[in-house]
């Protein structure tokens, strides 16, 4: 601000952009390219969201991010009376058939945008629908660019949006990795997500250890399916949480890069530099936001965003201050975006790569996070007889992950309860709470969306060739029964004939079964 010239980086090697990338994956980090401000949102019908997408593109944006509603995320059609009533279009957009995906991307050239789809259990259906839209509009599959979250392992551990049991689900993920590697070189088939593990209650070290272990599990599964690590590793990316313990978070990000690079080179034989780089998205911690004095959440989000920036994230979502009360209003979402713009453009933290590198405390914390994560890897290797993948399966089966996360969540809650951990506005400094959450300024979703979507789905079912749909679903079942087949082509075929997401998931479930979690407290 006062015009003092600064270098892109300070300190001795290894520098940012050099193995093991502790200090960042690029030599000049944000000085060469600022993090991407990627705000996640979704609402209403596909047509509504399409309007929002076009607005983003008109304003020069090139990245589209899709949030789906709960029925879509769970592989249920909007007209599923047991599971979907009351949830259609509430937390995101409802996608039942290809017709909805066509509406979602109407008049948008899929060859020139990058699309992020946050979906896991039925991710293969969503990707098939996206490909079918491209096929129908004459866009080359190889030109498709984007990310599908598709991190099924953390669903059993934390987010709980699974459909099938773990092993067949991993077969689906590896089928998608194989398909995108061959046909869609610009597509990121898995975004390995610690965010939800943390939100469910884990510590920072558990988030780090579980997430990287899941990453290793995908690598082992893909290698077992015959893929060369350097053909897919550069398209794996990560998604971390940024919680309130500032230096712990920064140490976590730095340790993540170092561990990933080291393991990818030493254990998995990656040769390409790009296979070694842990690229990640960060979102501030929704769970840290308080319903009490909600405006002070803006300060929490700002500090968490700063930790993400100092930790070297590639993209960032900042949470809206009203998220402990309801889905964010437009104003709250705008304040959240402005918050990270202040971090990016006013604070000067983007001028120097890894500005905290070399701090005795930060380096110690980085080592400590690595040490704790390594204990988790050792435990999983033990459980899996030398295989992280098998260890993760075992940890899901025996309740290790959910148990560890629930223990940490309860410990945190007890500390808040007995006052050893201060949460401002909740167990300390509570005066000033006006109690005036009259709801006038909270977002409400109306029932219209559900009514519209039910009519839309009925019309699509009316207009399609049911016999062709049944044949295509039979082909999906056959492919599911044949471990040597790839599920992508028959599912693309089925969605192209307007089979619904629910029908395809039912066909897969008829072979794979459905996962039911053991209720453990």
């Amino acid at each position, binding site marked *: 601000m006062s015009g003092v010239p600064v270098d892109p980086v300070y300190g001795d090697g290894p520098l940012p952009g050099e193995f093991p990338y502790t200090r960042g994956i690029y030599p000049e980090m944000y000085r060469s390219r600022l993090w991407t401000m990627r705000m996640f949102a979704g609402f209403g019908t596909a047509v509504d969201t399409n309007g929002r997408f076009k607005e983003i593109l008109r304003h020069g944006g090139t990245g589209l991010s899709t949030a789906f509603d*709960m*029925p879509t*995320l*769970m592989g*249920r059609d909007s007209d599923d009376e*047991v*599971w*979907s*009533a*009351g*949830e259609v279009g*509430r*937390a995101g957009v409802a996608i039942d058939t290809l017709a909805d995906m066509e509406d979602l991307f109407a008049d948008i050239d899929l060859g020139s945008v990058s699309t992020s789809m946050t979906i896991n259990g039925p991710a293969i259906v969503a990707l098939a629908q996206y490909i079918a839209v491209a096929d129908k509009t004459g866009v080359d599959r190889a030109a498709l660019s984007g990310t599908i979250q598709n991190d099924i392992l953390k669903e059993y551990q934390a*987010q*709980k*949006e699974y459909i099938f049991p773990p092993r067949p689900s991993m077969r689906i993920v590896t089928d998608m990795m194989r398909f995108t590697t061959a046909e869609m070189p610009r597509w990121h088939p898995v975004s390995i997500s610690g965010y939800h593990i943390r*939100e*469910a*209650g884990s510590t920072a070290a558990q988030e780090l250890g579980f997430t990287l272990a899941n990453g290793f599990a995908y690598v082992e599964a893909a290698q077992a399916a015959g893929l060369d690590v350097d053909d897919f590793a550069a398209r794996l990316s990560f998604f971390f949480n940024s919680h309130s313990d500032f230096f712990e978070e920064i140490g976590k990000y730095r340790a993540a890069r170092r561990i990933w690079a080291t393991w990818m080179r030493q254990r998995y034989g990656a040769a390409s530099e790009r296979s070694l780089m842990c690229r990640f998205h960060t979102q501030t911690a929704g*769970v840290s936001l*308080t*319903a*009490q004095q909600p405006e002070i959440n803006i300060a929490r989000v700002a500090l968490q965003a700063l930790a993400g920036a100092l930790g070297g994230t590639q993209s960032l979502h900042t949470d809206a201050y009203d998220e*402990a*009360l*309801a*889905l964010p209003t437009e104003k709250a979402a705008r304040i959240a975006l402005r918050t990270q713009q202040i971090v990016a453009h006013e604070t000067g933290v983007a001028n120097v790569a890894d500005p905290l590198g070399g701090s005795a405390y930060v380096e110690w914390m980085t080592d400590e996070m690595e040490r704790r994560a390594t204990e988790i890897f050792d435990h999983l290797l033990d459980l899996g007889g030398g295989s992280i993948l098998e260890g993760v399966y075992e940890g899901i089966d025996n309740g290790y992950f959910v148990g560890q*996360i*629930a223990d940490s*969540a*309860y410990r945190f*809650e*007890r500390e*808040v*309860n*007995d006052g050893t951990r201060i*949460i401002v506005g*909740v*167990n300390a400094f509570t005066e000033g709470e006006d*109690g005036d*959450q*009259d*709801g*006038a300024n*909270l977002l409400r*979703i109306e029932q219209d969306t559900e009514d519209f979507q039910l009519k839309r789905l009925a019309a699509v079912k009316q207009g399609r060739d049911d016999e062709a749909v049944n044949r295509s679903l039979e082909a999906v079942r056959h492919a599911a029964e044949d471990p040597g087949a790839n599920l992508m082509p028959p599912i693309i075929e089925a969605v192209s004939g307007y089979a619904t997401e629910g029908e395809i998931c039912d066909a897969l479930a008829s072979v794979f079964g459905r996962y039911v*979690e053991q*209720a453990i*407290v």
Partner: protein
Amino acid sequence: MTDSPQAAVAGRTAPIRVVLAKLGLDGHDRGLKVVARMLRDAGMEVIYLGLRQTTDTVIAAVEQEDADVIGLSMHNAGHLALAPRIVQAVSDAGLDVPVVIGGIVPEADVSALKEMGISAVLHPGASAVAVGEAVREAVRGSLGDQPVHD
């Protein structure tokens, strides 16, 4: 951290039995698990059903387990649609069991929920004492302050 190991309500000696569940597709179970442990620490007997329950499975559990109170966790803005359904299901089953809701529920909806027959609503950040007291109070209310004879 608990106010008292005494989990029973005045006039009855058996510990309170509480069924905890989430209805529908919402998978946010952190709060429900924490509440389960809080109530256990407070000496109550917790029947934890967990995720993806329906009104039918909740009612069946209440009947089988002879539960005193139902605790439901909601985080996806479905509370106004789901509350009348569970209250109706309790009444259809001929049960006199109070329902407590916890989770992301705007303050403005609390009176509507109470009119629908929900006994208490707990918000994020509720202390273990507040959670235990709300459950005890709900049970006391449904007992009409009458002694229970088993």
